[in-house]
């Protein structure tokens, strides 16, 4: 193990390390801690220039209550869920199929199709912006949740295919061959042999895509406009305009907007990290 394990080092370094850890963590998360404290401060603290000091009183319930009752935040949150969940399902379903096809079968075009997905996934969004916006307008889906979801599914399929294909490649191929010898049809091999083995990959992708899509800002701004369809990342800008200079409410709003992916991360941590670091080790 590198660096040298702490329990094999000198006593004084052990103590220093134990003390350094929480200190470093607080320093690292200082921006977040500040927002969390901001969000429970009363309005008066900001008027009295008590920005970074201790809150003069704890107004968490008032502040968060106002976010939920005095703004469009609940609608934005709902929109975010309505955009994120179908996208996760769609992208994972499509990429289970493409990943299976590219991971199991050998045919000439295989690697080129795979590279098409990979290259498309790396493309800067901006080159797609004008045509995709125009396309969405023409289909009558501009400023609708459906329009945003369809695009997200298509774009995420690139990354998901890369992920699934590499995962399937690492599965024991003998299983598939054995099934073929038994005369099991290809479709049933996919459904009964490969898919059950893909569960960890599906879980990992689902959390990753959930976070990516929840945090998307660019496409939300390009393809949607109003309260009825904008997700929370885009909505927070109008929220902030509504509560200009009301730092306690802006903080509370930001925290509300950040909670779903954070909760997802903590609940599915193992899968999340497995997904993010696939390929980081040989």
């Amino acid at each position, binding site marked *: 193990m*590198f660096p040298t394990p702490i329990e094999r080092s000198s006593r004084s370094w052990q103590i220093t*390390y134990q003390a350094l850890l929480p200190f470093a963590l607080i320093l690292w998360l200082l921006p977040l801690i500040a927002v969390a404290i901001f969000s429970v401060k009363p309005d008066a603290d900001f008027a009295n220039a008590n920005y970074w000091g201790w809150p003069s009183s704890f107004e968490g319930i008032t502040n968060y209550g106002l976010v939920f009752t005095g703004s469009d935040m609940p609608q934005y949150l709902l929109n975010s869920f309505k955009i994120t969940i179908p996208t996760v399902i769609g992208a994972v379903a499509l990429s289970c199929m*493409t990943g299976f096809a590219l991971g199991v079968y050998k045919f000439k075009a295989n690697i080129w199709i795979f590279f098409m997905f990979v290259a498309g996934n*790396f493309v800067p969004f901006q*080159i797609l912006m004008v045509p995709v916006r125009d396309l969405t307008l023409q289909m009558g889906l501009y400023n609708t949740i459906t329009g945003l979801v369809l695009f997200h599914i298509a774009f995420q399929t690139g990354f998901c295919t890369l992920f699934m294909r590499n995962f399937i490649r690492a599965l024991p191929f003998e299983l598939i061959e054995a099934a073929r010898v038994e005369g099991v049809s*290809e479709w049933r091999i996919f459904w009964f042999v490969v898919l059950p083995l893909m569960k960890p990959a599906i879980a990992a992708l689902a959390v990753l895509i959930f976070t990516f899509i929840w*945090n998307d800002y660019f496409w939300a701004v390009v393809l949607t406009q109003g309260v009825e369809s904008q997700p929370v990342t885009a909505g927070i800008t109008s929220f902030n305009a509504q509560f200009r200079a009301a730092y306690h409410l802006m903080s509370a709003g930001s925290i509300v907007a950040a909670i779903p992916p954070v909760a997802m991360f903590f609940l599915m941590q193992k899968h999340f990290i497995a997904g993010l670091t696939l390929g980081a080790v040989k």
Partner: protein
Amino acid sequence: MAQATIARDHQSSWWHRNQQQVTPWLFLAPGILFFLFYVIFPIFQSFNLSLYEWDGLGKAEFVGLYNYEELYWDDAFYTSLKNNVVWLVLYLAAIPAGLFIALFLNQTVTGIRLYKSLFFFPFVISQVVVGLVFTWFYDPTFGILNVVLGAVGLPPINVLGDENWVTIGIIVAGLWPQTAYCMILYLTGLNAVDPEQIEAGRLDGAKGWRMLWYIIVPQLRPATFIAFVVTIIGALRSFDLISIMTNGGPFGASRVLSFYMFEVALSEYGFRMGYGAAIAVVLFLIMLAFIAYFLWSMYKEEKAR
């Protein structure tokens, strides 16, 4: 009756014989169609569109390479291009920084798992929130940055209002989540480092930096490659933070190509789709150099298998 059976036999045997050739295409079809429709074709459409003058509503007028000629004389374009280079270079700092934190956290003391996930936290949060927080951090009237600067006797600076500092200020905000990402890649990589090689290195008297550089870093190559890919892409895609923190200002000093493109095509500056597409094409060509390199590396690896 007998004929029908024969026909069906014939059909099923055709299917039986060609099943393994046909199945992958059936599985690929929906994914490929979606991807072609929404990702691949639009790339070519953008190339085409960059030869037109179009406001997004009326008729597009063919202008040849005029948009590119205009780019050539456009100062704002060069500012954006320069900032893109600055982003690319400074953003790479996330890789060593991530490695450093990963080394710091690669221990087995109690509670270290919680520490690791809390250090990873910034990556999970939306860049919109990150941008907002850092805007307050830099704020000239109450930002904590100037409080700290004042405490050590330095004059206050208005980071986001100063043309020379603004891009660096935004990059620092972007480095926060990106470092967390690189850290998690390296933590996973460090887990897989071969302990025997470390012991062998120790016997040979390698330690500290020499051990890190000659024994650990070479084994972290796959993690470094991924960190490099995601950091480059992240740097070239930077949009959210700029939009939230400065909206390109002051006086366009913090624009990058992706933001300038958006501004030209979809904001109060007018709806110049063709000109925007031309900027996007330039950005795409820069990215293409990296994409080609990434694909080449992957291709070599596939061949080696």
